[in-house]
């Protein structure tokens, strides 16, 4: 599905990724974890083509992503901060994204799901953070792409919406899709993900199931397992 080979990226003097090798097979939910500044977002953005790597190769569905934009038809991406053009109405934004990608009727179901109907005629600049995040989710899930990348999807969501999001992700998984998630909410990760990719200092420190991580770190629960990795490496 996604293959990353020897990925390097430096921002100024700051080496963010130093030789990441990662293979993500088709189907399942993968959580990309790591401390702040470990390169999670950079890794995701590299896959999306938003960050141009200094070195290394990335292929998505067997297609090299270098100088290519068409492969993104197969990716749904949820950006971390949902900040949209404030003069656009919600309806128009949805229409615009459909216009840029392809037509779909899926949006109506998602609008109903997140109860966005009353906001459709409102300008994006006047929405609360949570509502914006819901709009963000609609934009992401309305296309039926095989790869879904979610960067901090839970930000600003109320508990009900969070439940709906989890259901949504599970449904997509059931369809055989691949989902990449970054999140700081460990309970969310633990609940939803099949595999963990742990990045530390620009490299893959661990890849495998949560069970494997617990065994490796010799900790009873997931949160402690993560904490022990961090403390071990900073001690």
């Amino acid at each position, binding site marked *: 599905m996604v293959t990353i080979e020897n990925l390097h990226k430096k921002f100024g003097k700051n080496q963010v990724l130093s030789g990441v090798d990662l293979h993500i097979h088709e189907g399942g939910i993968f959580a990309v974890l790591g401390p702040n500044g470990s390169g999670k977002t950079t890794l995701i*953005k590299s896959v999306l083509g*938003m*960050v141009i790597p200094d070195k290394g190769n990335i292929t998505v569905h067997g297609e090299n992503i270098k100088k290519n*934009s068409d492969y*993104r038809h197969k990716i749904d991406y949820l950006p971390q901060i949902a900040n949209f*053009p404030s003069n656009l109405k919600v309806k128009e934004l949805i229409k615009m994204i459909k216009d*840029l*990608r392809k037509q779909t009727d899926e949006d109506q179901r998602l609008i109903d799901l997140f109860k966005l109907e009353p906001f459709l005629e409102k300008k994006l600049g006047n929405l609360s953070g949570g509502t914006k995040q819901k709009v963000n989710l609609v934009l992401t899930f309305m296309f039926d792409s095989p790869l879904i990348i979610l960067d901090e999807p839970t930000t600003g969501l109320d508990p009900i919406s969070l439940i709906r999001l989890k259901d949504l992700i599970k449904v997509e998984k059931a369809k055989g899709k691949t989902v990449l998630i970054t999140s700081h909410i460990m309970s969310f990760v633990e609940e939803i993900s099949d595999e963990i990719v742990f990045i530390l200092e620009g490299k893959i420190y661990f890849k495998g199931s949560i069970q494997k991580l617990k065994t490796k770190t010799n900790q009873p629960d997931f949160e402690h397992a993560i904490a022990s990795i961090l403390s071990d490496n900073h001690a």
Partner: protein
Amino acid sequence: MRLRLYYPITMLKILKYSFYDLMRSRWSYVYFAFYLLLGVVLLFLNNDLSKAVITLMNVIIVLVPLIGTIFGVMYYYNSQEFTELLLAQPVKRSSIFLGQYLGVALSLSMSLILGLGIPFVFYGLFESSAIWDFSLLLVTGTFLTLIFTALAFNIALTNENKIKGFGYAILLWLFLAVIYDGLFLMTLILFEDYPLDKLSLIGTMLNPIDLSRTLILLKLDISALLGYTGAVFKQFFGTSFGFIISFIMLTIWVVMPVLRIVFKSKKKDF
């Protein structure tokens, strides 16, 4: 064939959305209202179309670049998140940035053309001999908008820091509108013992504001320009040669920074 068509179409779509977005923003109205007011006040004060056109020319060649740079930089920084949203879509980077650039440049040009055009048309522009001067004014204004918006995008693309970006934008404007001419004048006076006509023409070509000014001089001050002896000058100002060269140079001034936008945007991380 489908693939080839795809590129301009997505760019046009982005252009369309940027344009709509801007057309609804407060700033477009402010800009439009400013030109409307300027046109009305000038006509009201002067009672004379041709004099109003001359005053406008002086204002346009200084103000349009200023507004173009500031507005360009502002738009770029304000729409960064939107840009990121677009970047995750299956759209080429060059389409995104060219679309946004054209959206800004066109909405600014439209504010200029409508803002100035409306009062002048009401004042009887179409029956006046000033119509050619006025058209030239609008064409020059549009060129300057295209050039300085492109330069602004260049500055914004290379500077993550907003404050720095704005600073460079103001500096660029100040340099091209005032300082350049000061240096230019000093150079000419310093080397007055040498034949200078080529140098002075080249000096003019290298600054889009001076270039636009020359176009206006060709219209308004041809009598004075022909007082100078230099053969190159004479060929330049005495024939349509000057006009054609000036327009070619203005076009180059648009194309170069636009190409740099494409080039820079391909290499940039977001």
